[in-house]
């Protein structure tokens, strides 16, 4: 068996908040997430990027024990301060962990909030359920303080309002206040700013980063937006076809990608680089539906560099403690990003 991709060579250290090992998610006979492994240390902000269908959200849901009915996770997910494995833990145990050690922010804040409950009470609720505040009065005061921390004007009045009275960005800040209420060891964000306007996105991103920095929480940040991940995270993992295909420090991965998929993704998302006809670099074809990725290297049917050897599964090649890639024909180490894409030309149109 190949070693778990992204797994740090050293055994889990004291500082590791989250350690995922050999995580698989299956439904029926199909494997949706395969052999995913990584660790996140206290205070570390790690991005997980990939296109829809790559398995990034399933990875996050497995960590939180929120996989939809019928999907099964196997492998191991350990969280510092929790004495059992999160994979296979029953709901009673998971509900003690969720909202306390692990908190989450999803894309759509309206589905995370109770529309019939004042937001102050919703924040106070997580404090009381996990018994981190002794009584209602102190929980309520803490809720107002949290609303102030996420920058809502007049937090006292905001606590008395219902979710529908807020804008999308404000609702997402309320969700963030709930997530940060118990100073979680790990904050999981799944596309938290995707539905927001750019100016609101800037505000919410800033609050998320500040929130985890202040608490020295670890963060797993899922998005399809490379620029957002580069802005908010220090380390990034690239997922495709249910596997980690590359990981490393943000600067390294985005300036010197090794995996051909990462290279293609960076090329396709860079709107300032066009060929002599003014066209963008693309990856041919489209992401196959879940479970229909080719055997061997999952990217080989869209890769211009694929050969017969790619029909076997590429091993994880570590390039550092937290970095590596799985590709038989990697971008040469010294090459600049997009070196194989058409002539690099600034912003002009053909």
């Amino acid at each position, binding site marked *: 068996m190949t070693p778990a991709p992204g797994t740090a060579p050293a055994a889990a250290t004291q500082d590791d908040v989250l350690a995922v090992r050999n995580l698989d998610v299956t439904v029926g006979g199909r494997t949706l997430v395969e052999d995913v492994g990584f660790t996140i240390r206290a205070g570390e902000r790690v991005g997980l990027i990939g*296109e*829809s269908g790559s398995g990034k959200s399933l990875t996050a849901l497995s960590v939180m024990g929120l996989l939809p009915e019928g999907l099964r996770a196997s492998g191991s997910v350990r969280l510092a301060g929790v004495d059992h494995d999160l994979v296979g833990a029953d709901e009673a145990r998971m509900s003690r962990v969720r909202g306390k050690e692990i908190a989450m922010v999803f894309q759509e804040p309206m589905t995370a909030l109770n529309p019939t409950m004042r937001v102050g009470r919703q924040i106070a609720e997580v404090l009381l359920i996990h018994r981190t505040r002794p009584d209602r009065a102190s929980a309520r005061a803490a809720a107002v303080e949290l609303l102030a921390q996420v920058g809502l004007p007049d937090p006292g009045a905001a606590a008395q309002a219902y979710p529908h009275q807020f804008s*999308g960005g404000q609702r997402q800040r309320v969700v963030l206040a709930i997530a940060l209420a118990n100073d979680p060891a790990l904050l999981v964000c799944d596309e938290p700013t995707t539905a927001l*306007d*750019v*100016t*609101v*996105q*800037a*505000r919410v*991103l*800033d609050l*998320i*980063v*500040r929130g985890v920095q202040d608490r020295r929480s670890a963060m797993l940040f899922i998005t*399809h*937006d*490379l*620029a*957002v991940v*580069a*802005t*908010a995270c220090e380390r990034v993992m690239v997922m495709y076809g249910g596997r980690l295909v590359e990981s490393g420090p*943000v*600067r390294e991965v*985005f*300036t010197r990608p090794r995996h051909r998929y990462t290279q*293609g*993704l*960076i090329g*396709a*998302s*860079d*709107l*300032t680089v*066009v060929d002599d006809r*003014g*066209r*963008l*670099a*693309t*990856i041919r074809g*489209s*992401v196959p*539906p879940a479970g229909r990725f080719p055997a061997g290297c999952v990217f080989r049917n869209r890769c211009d560099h694929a050969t017969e050897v790619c029909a076997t599964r590429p091993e994880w090649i570590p390039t550092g403690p937290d970095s590596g890639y799985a590709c038989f024909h990697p971008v040469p180490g010294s090459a600049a990003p997009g070196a194989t894409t058409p002539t690099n030309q600034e*912003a002009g*149109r053909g």
Partner: protein
Amino acid sequence: MAEQPTGAPPAPEPGTGPTEAISVHDVTRVYQRPRTSLRSASPPVHALRGVSFAIPQGQRFGIVGESGCGKSTLLRILAGLDRPTSGSVAIDGRDLTGLPERRLTFVRERLQLVFQDPMSSLDPRMRVGDIVAEPLVAQGHGNRRERVAELLEAVGLRADAADRYPHQFSGGQRQRISIARALAPRPKIIVADEPVSALDVSVRAQVLNLIADLVDELSLTLVFVSHDLSVVRHVCDRVAVMHAGQIVETGSTEQVYEDPRHSYTRRLIAAVPTLGRALSGVSAADLNREQRP
């Protein structure tokens, strides 16, 4: 105000030059919200407040703004799906304002729309061939089968796609289907409302290239609406920035991005995360700090 067009018959007005694909003059749109109190009416919503611009034929014109700025209302008015409270809109020199619905067929022939979410704009119970042919049925074209095959090929889909249903396609392919449908009646103007916002990065580049190819080959005028300034910068020659129902700045995309004049435009540009800026050390706090001068 509601200016009546001087000549209701479809003769182009002499004043507006024939080179202008779209001209919008001092358009306002006021909505009345449903009342929430028995005693008083709800305050009116001024969705558009005196919007004017002109788009010459063949131009790629971007409209940028955040939610609630009025860009969707403006699009609906351009497409003849809504009417301005005051002001006038002309497509190819022909005024739409005041024309009855049945006189708007020329708009449907000249101007077609592509929407953000291809899943909600394609009828799930219709075969792709029928979806693409539908505008042709409405306009009584013959030889539809041949035209559908030609359109599917133009957007990079196989001819047998015509016999399948929308759910059998990926998001990017569905957006190609909506582009094929929009092109069916041979329009000269395509209005695209966030056409790539719901797409994955690798597919977004493909669809943007397809739109650029079609605009070039068919000499189309393109109105491209997006909240994503980087996309508009790549696609468009000129851009109008909308804020609170008004156009606060307009100019060539290069000028607006390199040297934004209006404070709102500056804020908008400063808030956009880019890979280049992030790698040069711009943090989330920096993007947000620029919001407050």
